[in-house]
Structures are given as structure tokens and as C-alpha cells.
């Protein structure tokens, strides 16, 4: 296992079962270790444990809602540059490396990238549209711990999210990866129009060999940062029903070994679930992460600059300086500070320690500020009760 000291104890990255575990100081001492300076009360914040690495800015798919506004002629760093960035991530103590793009399949050296990550103690995973993935290329991805294919559902749902129908291509990719022995998951972007099809989407993905689905909120970034976002985002009643929806999906799929994962931006929706809201310790113990920008998560843009997450602009910090520069970067510090300075209704929210205010990409787009997620059910209720703070709920 890889172990990184934290003020609370340590993060431990296990190989089997694959998991990242938060251990308290007594647990670390049981392993015969001591955190030393990292356990001082004045210890500075630590770098992220999960980093998203953009290995290309190229993509020819042209999805309407591409959060990167990726294009076919984007920049693609050479392998040596990316391996040097991985060296920097290793020095920072990063555990999980999520490789993406734009579209990483534009590269022909993904196997070497995965091997390079493994040799540096990083667990490499990959996200792809899967379009054009051949059986040969699928086999070349075996060094990745998991590959997720963007799959928003059948033809109608896929076209709703991306503007064209390539559901068949994504399904073929899931099948090819599963046949190649690669652990494969699907990324399902949810919009108002595709929400109802979620159960069928997951059944189809599972039947093709996927072992996990990650549900993602449609976000107003890149080409999706337009007025069209208001029509595509989840409706308030859909957001409020997330807890019950997950309960049903997990009951159907977990016994068969198919996992359900939610992205950080969906965590505020769980505040509307009475049972979860009443037991925030359950969320914390299950390792649920809300907005971890500036903390457990960072993104390395294709030019090597660090961003709090993939949906927002980069900071001035270069990945080469991540290990020592993370604690001092003013933008990352501002993201970290949200929890301790959270305004209402976040300040009094039972799950704020997990949620951390929801998606800042959404608040920046809708409210023009780094504030509470304006689509959180609690925030909507709070604003409805304070009519001088107007927000368009639907």
C-alpha cells in the first residue's frame, strides 16, 4: 500500500481490495509509522490524492456540451513531457492518476503512459469516448486499472447530451474493453431529458460488460457554458430525488457486483434525502467526496498548469511545482477556504463537511461568484425564503 501522512493520520492506497482509506493517527502508529511534522497542529495542507491529467487537447467528436471546447487540432504534449509531469505528481504523493483529454485515444502511446504511471506508484485510470476503439487498442489499455467510456444511454439519450448519436460506438467500446479483460465503467452525463432513462442505461451498460457507472451532472463549462445549459440541467425535482434514485439503483445492481458512483457535483443533491441528511457520518465513512478542489483533487491542464478541477480555469501553479507550491497558491487556498468561511445555508448544513458547498463551476456560471451551489435543494429553498435573492429554479 502507498501511505501519505495527513494531519488527521494518513491516506492509504490499497491494492486489494482497491481502495483509498483514511486512517487516524492510532491506525498509522499500528503500522509502525509516525507522521512527524505532518501531524503538527500547524501543518500546512497537503497536495491532492487524485489528479486528472489531460494528455491531449485533441478531439474530433464535437460534442455540443464539451466542457473543454475540445477541437481536432488541439495541442498534444509528447510522451516525455507527460512522464515528467508524472514525476512531479509522484513527488507530491498523488495516488490516482485519471488520464483524459479531450480524447486520449488520439494518442498511440497510452500503454506507455499507463506503464509510466505504474512505475511511479500512481494508479492509472482512463476516460474515453470509446469512438473508434479497436480490439487491438483495447488490449493496449490493459495496464490501466479501469477505463471509463462516456455512455449517456441509447441513441436518444446520447444525442441529447452530445448532439449526435454514437451510442453504438460507445457500446462497442465497452464490449471491446470487457472482452480484452479491462475493467470497464461508463460515465453517464445526466440532463433533464435523459434522467428518466437512467435505469435502462445502466442495465444496458452492465449487459455489455461494464462493472461500474459514474453518474455526472451536466456542467456549464466549455461549450456547455451557454444559455442552453438552463434547459439541459437537471430539474429541481430530479435533483431532490437523487437519494431515492440511487437507493433503487444500488439495490438492483450492487448484489451483482456492479457499482454506482456519483461525481462530486451531485453531492449537494443528497441534502434533500432525509435519511442521508440525518446521518452525515455515514457519508463521510463511505468516503464520499464533494467539492475537493484545492484539497484531494486537482487537474493538470494540457499546458501543465494546475486547476482546482477540470471544469475551471487553471491557476498560475505549474505541475512541476505541485509538491511545494500547492500550499501557497492563492487560488487553491481560496477553494480550500470555502468550508471554514461558508455562508448560509451551507454553514448550517449537516453535510457541509462532505459536500463543501457543491459545484463551484455552477455557482460561477449562474451567480458569478465562488459561492454555494445555486442548484442545491437547500440553497433553492433558502433563496425562495429570501425573495431578494432571486434564482431561476427551473
Amino acid at each position: 500500500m502507498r501511505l501519505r501522512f495527513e494531519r488527521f493520520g494518513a491516506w492509504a492506497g490499497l491494492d486489494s481490495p482497491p481502495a483509498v482509506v483514511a486512517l487516524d493517527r492510532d491506525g498509522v502508529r499500528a503500522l509502525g509509522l509516525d507522521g512527524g511534522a505532518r501531524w503538527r497542529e500547524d501543518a500546512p495542507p497537503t497536495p491532492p490524492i487524485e489528479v486528472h491529467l489531460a494528455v491531449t487537447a485533441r478531439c474530433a467528436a464535437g460534442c455540443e456540451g464539451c466542457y473543454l471546447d475540445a477541437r481536432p487540432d488541439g495541442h498534444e504534449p509528447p510522451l516525455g513531457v507527460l512522464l515528467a509531469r508524472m514525476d512531479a505528481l509522484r513527488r507530491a504523493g498523488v495516488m490516482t492518476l485519471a488520464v483524459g483529454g479531450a480524447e486520449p485515444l488520439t494518442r498511440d502511446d497510452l500503454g506507455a503512459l499507463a506503464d509510466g504511471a505504474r512505475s511511479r506508484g500512481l494508479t492509472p485510470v482512463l476516460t474515453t469516448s470509446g469512438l473508434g476503439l479497436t480490439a487491438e487498442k483495447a488490449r493496449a489499455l490493459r495496464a490501466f486499472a479501469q477505463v471509463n467510456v462516456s455512455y449517456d444511454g441509447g441513441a436518444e439519450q446520447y444525442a441529447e447530451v452530445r448532439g449526435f448519436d454514437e451510442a453504438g460506438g460507445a457500446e462497442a467500446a465497452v464490449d471491446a474493453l470487457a472482452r480484452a479483460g479491462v475493467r470497464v465503467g461508463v460515465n453517464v452525463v445526466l440532463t433533464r431529458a435523459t434522467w428518466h432513462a437512467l435505469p435502462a442505461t445502466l442495465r444496458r451498460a452492465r449487459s455489455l460488460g461494464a462493472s461500474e457507472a459514474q453518474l455526472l451532472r451536466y456542467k456549464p463549462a466549455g461549450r456547455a457554458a451557454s444559455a442552453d445549459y438552463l434547459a439541459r440541467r437537471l430539474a429541481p425535482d430530479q435533483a431532490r430525488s437523487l437519494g431515492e434514485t440511487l437507493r433503487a439503483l444500488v439495490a438492483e445492481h450492487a448484489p451483482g457486483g456492479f457499482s454506482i458512483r456519483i461525481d462530486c457535483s451531485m453531492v449537494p443533491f443528497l441534502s434533500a434525502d432525509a435519511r442521508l441528511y440525518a446521518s452525515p457520518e455515514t457519508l463521510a465513512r463511505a468516503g464520499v467526496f464533494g467539492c475537493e478542489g484545492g484539497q484531494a483533487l486537482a487537474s493538470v491542464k494540457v499546458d501543465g498548469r494546475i486547476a482546482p478541477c477540470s471544469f475551471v480555469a487553471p491557476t498560475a501553479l505549474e505541475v512541476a511545482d505541485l509538491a511545494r507550491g500547492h500550499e501557497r497558491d492563492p487560488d487553491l487556498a481560496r477553494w480550500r477556504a470555502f468550508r471554514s468561511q461558508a455562508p448560509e445555508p451551507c454553514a448550517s448544513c449537516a453535510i457541509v463537511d462532505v459536500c463543501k458547498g457543491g459545484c463551484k463551476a455552477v455557482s460561477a456560471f449562474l451567480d458569478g461568484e465562488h459561492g454555494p451551489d445555486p442548484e442545491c435543494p437547500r440553497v433553492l429553498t433558502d433563496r425562495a425564503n429570501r425573495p431578494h435573492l432571486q434564482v431561476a429554479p427551473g
Partner: protein
Amino acid sequence: MSDAPRSPVDPRSVRAVRPGHGASCSSIGSVVDTLFVTSLLGSALFAAVVAALGKEPVEVVGDEQRPAEGAGKAPDDEAP
């Protein structure tokens, strides 16, 4: 690798378990199975984690991110 002598990890020392590999390159994901499944499944995962903590070789990482003079204090909410 650490070769320090170990004692069993008390399950109460495990504050959070994030199972699986997050494979999304855009946002950080969390498996929610253990939020909703029967305690039996959750307990099995937890037992496997505690067992692994007792036997997997330990490599301490992040050795170059040391506290520096004048650095900011970690926020109180960093612990899961």
C-alpha cells in the same frame, strides 16, 4: 518500503473507505454502494480493508511535500 513492526489496526481507526478506482478524468467520483446496501456487504468490504492494512507492504509517498516556514495551516475540515 517500510519494514517497521506492525500491530493489528483497530477497525475504529479506519475513518473512511473510498472503494474502487475513480476513472473519470473530469470530476472526482465516490462509490455510493455502501451508503445503501445491507450492512453485510459494507461489513465485508470493511473487513477486507482492515485485513489488507495488516499485510500489504507499506511505501510512504509524498516525501517531498514537507511543511515550510510561513505556510498556511490546513483547514479544519480536511479530515474525512
